[in-house]
């Protein structure tokens, strides 16, 4: 008896669920041939070509397995020999509440289980209303359904309620039959950036760099066996930081040796953007972070430098460590020989046992080929600078400056020229920068004094113990050589108007 029940159950199930059983043997998504074009800024273009069999005339077609973060307003569809009547994006989700709401007026089956024996009784019932409680008519009784007394079996699901947001398109086809239908849309929830692994050999002055494309899928949907193309750039209007800051790191406050290049990399481009196709097909799973190699360069020249910036004409009580700077180039000759999409450069060095150890990271913007890069990786333990204001005094310049000059004309007389003289007052600040080096090798530190531009006219440097370079109105810089296990003191006088 038991066996026959089981057989009957399976038969019933088999009759009920042919589609489901079929789905089990091929648990694939409904997507067709998918191509993903992923941008840096939370955006992807999805092209999905599915083979669909359309009947002649108007029909409504659903497109399951589109991205859960689809921007439905961007959907375009092309199907040979079929026109689009309308597109719908339905996000009215199927829930038990709504199932009951929509069943008002319908006949359902109530299955009651006898609490003592477990025997089931079935009754047909009509749902009268579902307002803060479900009212049903069973035969000629009116009952309030409650207390989990009965299972309610609905004969069908209401139309228009969906398990997940669904795109549907009503098409008008000239002729029936199978044809490729291409769905194009934009989706959020994608992004990518580059990650660089740089192994720096200080003694040889070389770096080995591997570049990885790191792409993220938070769209809520998996894309199996997709063709993936990455575009190095952020298209569209939305600037990620409100437009106050450019995506490129600012040059001010960075060590010297950063300059954008003028070479074109040997890669596919599209307008302003470099394209990075992923070879073959790959599965972009949901909640996945995927990395694919795009760059592998060994033995590119690189050097280490030191950089210190004093933001204003002020002292420090304690000496501060200088920045360790790694300099390299992305040029074809003597560099990485490629354009570098924006991302993070992680720098490693080998320790005494030869194991690579992490020594710091920095972010780069989209970097054209031929650029010079100088990246702060960290601060040097053994190289420090202590800036000190030794003296600050007001000086009166002997120089008189003609600042105003005008003519007075009186009728019949030659014009008279009047000048008004102003004395020029300066503040003279004497700074020392004590640069110490506890390393067993000599170093050269790039010391920058910033904060010189006060918008009060010119600044002068009447004396300096090393020849400096005025980098801008605001910054003056010196290359300070420091012997091994020694120190060098740089002394500079600044005459400023404030």
């Amino acid at each position, binding site marked *: 008896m038991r066996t026959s029940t089981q057989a009957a159950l399976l038969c019933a199930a088999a009759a009920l669920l042919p589609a489901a059983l079929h789905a*089990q043997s091929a648990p694939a998504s409904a997507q067709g041939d998918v191509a993903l074009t992923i941008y840096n800024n939370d955006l992807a273009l999805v092209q999905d070509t599915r083979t669909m069999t359309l009947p002649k005339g108007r029909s409504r077609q659903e497109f399951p397995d589109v991205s859960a973060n689809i921007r439905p307003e961007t959907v375009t569809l092309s199907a040979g020999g079929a026109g689009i009547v309308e597109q719908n994006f339905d996000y009215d989700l199927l829930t038990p509440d709504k199932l009951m709401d929509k069943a008002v007026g319908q006949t359902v089956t109530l299955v009651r289980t006898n609490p003592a024996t477990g025997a089931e009784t079935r009754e047909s019932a009509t749902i009268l209303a579902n307002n803060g409680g479900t009212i049903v008519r069973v035969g000629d009784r009116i009952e309030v359904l*409650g207390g*989990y007394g009965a299972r309610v079996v609905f004969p069908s699901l209401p139309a228009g309620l969906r398990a997940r947001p669904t795109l549907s398109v009503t098409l008008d086809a000239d002729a029936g039959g199978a044809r490729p239908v291409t769905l194009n849309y934009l989706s959020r929830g994608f992004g990518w950036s580059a990650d660089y692994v740089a192994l720096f050999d200080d003694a040889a002055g070389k770096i080995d760099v591997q570049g990885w494309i790191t792409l993220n899928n938070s769209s809520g949907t998996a894309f199996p066996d997709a063709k993936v193309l990455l575009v190095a750039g952020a298209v569209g209007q939305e600037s990620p930081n409100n437009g106050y800051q450019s995506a490129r790191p600012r040059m001010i406050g960075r060590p010297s040796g950063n300059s954008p290049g003028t070479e074109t990399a040997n890669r596919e481009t599209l307008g302003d953007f470099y394209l990075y196709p992923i070879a073959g097909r790959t599965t972009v799973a949901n909640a996945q972070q995927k990395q694919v190699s795009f760059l592998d360069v060994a033995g590119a020249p690189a050097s280490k430098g030191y950089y210190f910036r004093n933001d204003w004409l002020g002292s420090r009580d304690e000496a501060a460590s200088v920045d360790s700077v790694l300099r390299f180039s992305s040029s074809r000759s003597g560099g990485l020989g490629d354009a570098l999409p924006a991302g993070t450069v992680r720098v490693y060095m080998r320790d005494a046992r030869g194991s690579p150890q992490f020594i710091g990271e920095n972010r780069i913007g989209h970097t054209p080929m031929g650029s010079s890069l100088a990246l702060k990786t960290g601060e*040097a333990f053994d190289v420090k600078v202590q800036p000190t204001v030794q003296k600050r005094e007001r000086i009166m310049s002997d120089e008189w400056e003609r600042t105003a000059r005008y003519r007075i004309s009186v009728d019949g007389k030659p014009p008279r020229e009047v000048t008004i003289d102003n004395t020029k007052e300066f503040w003279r600040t004497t700074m020392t920068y004590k640069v110490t080096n506890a390393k067993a090798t000599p170093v050269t530190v790039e010391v920058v004094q910033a904060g010189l531009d006060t918008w009060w006219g010119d600044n002068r440097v009447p004396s300096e113990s090393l020849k400096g370079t005025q980098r801008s109105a605001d910054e003056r810089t010196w290359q300070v050589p420091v012997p091994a296990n020694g120190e060098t003191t740089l002394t500079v006088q600044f005459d400023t108007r404030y």
Partner: protein
Amino acid sequence: MRRFLALLALLAAPAWGQTVVVSPAPDSTAVTVYRAPERSSDTAMNLGWLQGYALITEKRTVSIPKGRATVRFEGVAAGLFPESAIISGLPAGVREKNMDADLLSPATLYARGFGRPVLLRRLHPKSGKERLERAVIRSGPDGSAILQTADGFEAINCSGLSESIAYPGVPADLSAKPTLSVETDSPVAAKVTLSLSYLAWGFDWQANYVLRMHEDGRKADLDAWVTLASSDSTSYPEAEAALVAGKVNREADDGARPQPTGDSLTFRCFIGPPMQVGMAIPAPPPAPMMMEAADMMVTAMRANSPMKMKAAVVVQQEALGDLKLYRVPMPTTVAANAQKQVMLAQKRGVTVTPFVQVDVYDAYVQGDAALMLRTRNRKEEGLGLPLPGGPITVFEPRGENAVLIGEGGVPDKAVGEDLDLRIGTATQLALEANETALNDKTRAVTLTASNARAQPVRLEVRIAHGSESQLLTPSAKLKRKDGRDVWAVTVPANARATLRYTLRRPS
């Protein structure tokens, strides 16, 4: 039950797309711990929220099959930053690296089951009788479960019977934890030893200094300890442990990484309150884990114990570029949710000079008189080693015992640097400033230092003044240090010392 299993077996269909090789654990591990970038030298680690990180390098032996295969790495740190993962040693390189965070949970299992057959299992509450029915999932997990059975459509768990869903199998792409894997395409099958390295958060370390003054007050013994801590859930037994001192640049995490999925599934009904059904799953990892009963392991002795004892093991220091690397010389276990201490250095008879420091601006005393200790990081003073930043505690002997007399912080100090450590506030030495106007351009200032102690006290007053004025005619010789005038004087026991100077503004 046998019938249940048979039915499940009937439904189950293995869905492996390609060969999957699982590497369950590393053969050996090296852990290099980096300090929290923003924590100052005198701030202690917060064991509940370690903000440093570690570079973990693992050696793993993996049998790579011929052709395309997926190698899954298990037993990696929970705080792994997947974008930092480096894998070397694979015969044909790495086609791609993946970090999958689509986790196996009631909600994801249900969502993946959409449109697929499952078993609906009903348990009679009194008789305990179980009934099984085949069903198909017809709703998404957000709105809770609606299933199609042979009878029609039903919402689950609305009948008072205990109902649950049994699935035929686990989708291949759902994993228990965020999982790192690589895709390889090897021309031949091979057994390889590969190296996997990555950065992971949830680690930190710091140096701690204990200074014990000698009776004479001019020498001291210094014990330096390093404490490393891990709040990660993975333990690294017998690891090569190292620490890196110095500031390492880290970029802020832009948070672009996909967050792990995984949620409970709520079977909501059209009537009654929502019922929580399904297994409880642990919260997703991003929140820092609390330290469970910090498992304290002390290699030699507790750091702040002033007792004399010879430490067994001292870390070895080497240069790593412009940073300092400290290696624990023997394999050690970096345990989950634990901290461990190893000796950094032991120095006997370090020359120290205690003094009191006060700052004066124009004619005003700034702040309290500070108890200071001065030494220089050189061999001559008994030091001469890189000192990574950390808190310092100072003890003075009192008969058999020792008394804590001060606490402060040592910043990163290179060899050759001066160390002026502020360890407390002086109570028995006071400095007063008094000014009188001589004329509208000149003021006379008198500084008076009073020493209430029965010992002479060395005092240093750092005098700064506005750039308008000049300091003239000091009654004692002033030194010049760091752009300031310094009055250095020894104030005799139970006595006063005085300095007079004038401040003049230029006409």
